[in-house]
């Protein structure tokens, strides 16, 4: 008899549990939570602008070229680097996050041992235009936030300047790996590229 009343109790409980779960389900199903994102959500640590500023060492005149990227890192526009034949320029690089208003150049300077900028001139200008005199990190190894661009030709020409910002992983043996990195294919697990961008180069008479 005692068992029977317990059985009835649980039977009733079972009925209520079913009804209750149905009710909960219906309430929740009809509940409307928008899941609309915060307009500022999804901001990333990105580089949106790379600016190359060139100062003519003879005349002191300043020009610049800018490459712009969107938040997903896709190239939006790139300006041509224009110089006169036979000139020498001192060049400085700037890396900006325009969305957040951050200057990434400072972050590179803070961790200069772990970074290196590698440059390569391509096209027909490669035979006469060189990049030398990169600045150095705390260990005296090349960094490359500033450098000298020298053209030795006398005629008009064109080409490209490829800029690679490399950073060295925790597994890297610094400074050896950095010194021995010839700027070719990166070694996965030791070095990787944060930036790999190519500026058009135009040389006028």
């Amino acid at each position: 008899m005692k068992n029977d009343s317990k059985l009835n109790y649980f039977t009733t409980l079972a009925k209520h549990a079913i009804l209750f779960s149905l009710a909960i389900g219906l309430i929740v199903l009809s509940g409307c939570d928008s899941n609309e994102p915060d307009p500022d959500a999804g901001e990333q640590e990105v580089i949106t602008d790379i600016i190359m500023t060139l100062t003519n060492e003879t005349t002191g005149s300043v020009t610049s070229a800018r490459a712009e990227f969107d938040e997903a890192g896709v190239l939006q526009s790139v300006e041509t680097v224009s110089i006169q034949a036979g000139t020498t320029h001192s060049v400085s690089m700037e890396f900006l996050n325009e969305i957040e208003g951050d200057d990434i150049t400072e972050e590179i300077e803070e961790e200069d041992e772990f970074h290196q900028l590698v440059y390569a001139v391509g096209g027909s200008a490669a035979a006469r235009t060189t990049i030398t005199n990169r600045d150095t990190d705390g260990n005296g190894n090349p960094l490359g936030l500033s450098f000298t661009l020298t053209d030795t030709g006398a005629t008009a020409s064109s080409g490209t300047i490829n800029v690679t910002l490399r950073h060295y992983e925790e597994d890297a043996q610094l400074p050896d790996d950095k010194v021995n990195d010839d700027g070719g294919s990166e070694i996965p697990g030791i070095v990787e590229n944060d930036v790999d961008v190519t500026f058009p180069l135009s040389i006028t008479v």
Partner: protein
Amino acid sequence: MSAIQSCRLLLAALILISVTPANAQKLDGVVTDAVGESIPGVQIFLQGTSIGTVTDKAGRFEFNTLELSSYTVVFKFIGFRTASHRVDLTKGDITLNIALVQEAIEIAEVTVTAEGTTQSFLTRAPVAVSTLSPEELSDVRGQSLGETLAHLPGITTLTTGPTISKPVVRGLHSDRLVIMNAGVRQEGQQWGGEHAPEIDPFSPDRIEVVRGAAGVEYGVGAIGGVIRIEPRELPDRPGYGGQLLINGFSNSGQGSGSLHVEGSPQSIQGLGWRVQTSGRAAGDAHTPDYVLGNTAFRELNGSGAVGFHNSRFGVESFVSHFSTELGIFRGSHINTIEGLLAAIELGRPAVAYDFGYDIDVPKQEVAHTVLALKGHWQPGAAGSVLEVKYGLQRNSRKEYDAHRIGGRPSDRPAFDLTLLSQSVDVKYRTNPTGNAFAVFGASGLTQGNENGSLGYLIPNFRALTGGLFARGLWSKGTVNLEAGTRFDYRWMRAFPREFQGTGSFEKDVRRFNSLSGVASAIWQFLPSWSAAVNLGTAWRPPNMSELYSFGLHHGTAQFEIGDRALGAERSMSIDGTLRHASGRANLEVGIYVNRFADFIYLFPEAEPTITIRGVFPTFSYRQTDARLAGIDGLVEYSLTKFLKAGVSGSMVRARDTGNDIDLINMPADRLHLHAAFQLPDRGAFNSSEVELGSLHVTKQTRFPAGVDYADPPDGYNLIEIDLRTSINVGTTHVDVGLSVKNIFNTSYRDYLSRYRYFVDEPGRTAILRVRLPLGTYNDR
């Protein structure tokens, strides 16, 4: 050979009929359900003979002129578990009253019987089913779900190193499969190839994989199949018990264990409970030649269930929590095409990693919580059941990137997704009348996805899904017929960025609705043989990644672009299944053709994307027509009482018929051979067995040219051995197992491994398993 055997059986049956009984005996009785309601129309036959009858309106049956002999009487009725009973008529007439046990609603579709009778095996489903019984599962404890299923016919795994493996059924995976865990459809971020199912590998007591379109009960997405994971049934006999499982793996230094306790109080008949917890921790895996740096993982899971049932009612609540932190091999996270090509060229890690248990970036942190409430009620007449289920799930996935401007990876995840899902399912099964019954159902699902962090790979979204289905089953004699249809509607409101990856957020609403359907027949054309044909059509709406993704995919160094205009994908399939079951042999072979209209895939674009990190090959989601066809199956044969051997294999042929090329990333042909020897009991050692296995995988020669970075790797052959025994310790028995996988420490790569470009698969591993039963734990 099998045909000869069947002929013999037929001959034996004919002889039996022709013999006139010298001394006629009578067998009669009444068949009822568990509540005592009589069941008319139950088929009753004597196994091994052609003698049979059906119960009348009052559930009575009678055999009048039987031979003086003993028989196995089989009771079969649609919607109930097939029962068999041994009777001995040599001592006189017998009255046999039987109560049949009802099958759970969804189980009627894929009949599960622990006893695995010949009859239910032959008619278990209109499509091929791979199962892992509790015994088989206990031999693979401690491995992930994908690895656990890998030896089953028709199933392969898509892996991202030793930490992530996802099941692939007949070439299809991710959003084309449905995973049912404890009766609730698992809702996670399954769109990614590197997203493993969030399942505690110690929790299932039984796993079934329905190969192919699985009918109308599972809703959208069940195009490629259904993986059903069943925890142990709650105890209903008074007492307490449990089990402790401990494993060790030599290769990765993995230790894992699970403790499970269950009970049922004396005072309340029908009340049962269970609590279970498990954990796994592993260090870096070793290939034969080097350490795979940062492939350690940690996992901690727990679950609890309590339920009550009497003859007409049942309620059960189930709670589970799964959490894992797993490392991604550092050398596979390459963000430039030059780096990727250099790593492939090198063919091994550039860094000599030391073994360790530390988990560094890149890594994933995944948690999944499920709350399920279930109730069923039998309103009256035998066989009718109303079932209600409510499910609440929270899935959290954080992925940490190794790439950050400025060199140091962020402490914040690169993406952080939280998916909250709630579902309600109601099913009603009618009282079987004549030889038929029907099941009607309705289901609703609401989901909200939040991306709480930096990246915006998958947008925030809200989705509502509703479905209605009906299916009918008819069974008479040796034939079972089934037909069903389902309607589903899905509404999705996503908040992608206005200009693909950039710009402000906007609202994008998409609506999808469509029908799915199934028609099938099973014919048991000989007592030990059956054939089934299944025609099915299913669909799925495109997922969020296919619609909205825009960005670089780490590890594959490809730029992926979604398409907001994608429509639904539809499959039309035909399946044939042949089954045989006798005392000595078991066979199940499935053959299928699955045609897709608007199959969603990644199309390699001619124009690469120029990004701040250089130039990347670009793939966009598109739709095409495709055809997947193949054959898979299993044969097991007992050569002697002590020696059992078996073969399972699978073959898939997949073609993009729209572009007339092969489909990429389809499993290569594989064959698994195994033989088990039973050793005689000796001293305290009982039920000892030695099992040898050999897996042969061919090289995939069917792939689209010029799309992939590297051609498929060579085929490979792996040998494994497994020893198991049960040791009597006092009054209890401890099960101990030792297996060695990849005995010869073979270096190999698998086409469906995402690491195949960079490194070999893990080498030899020895696994030690110990199982200790506690209290009055009832094994089976």
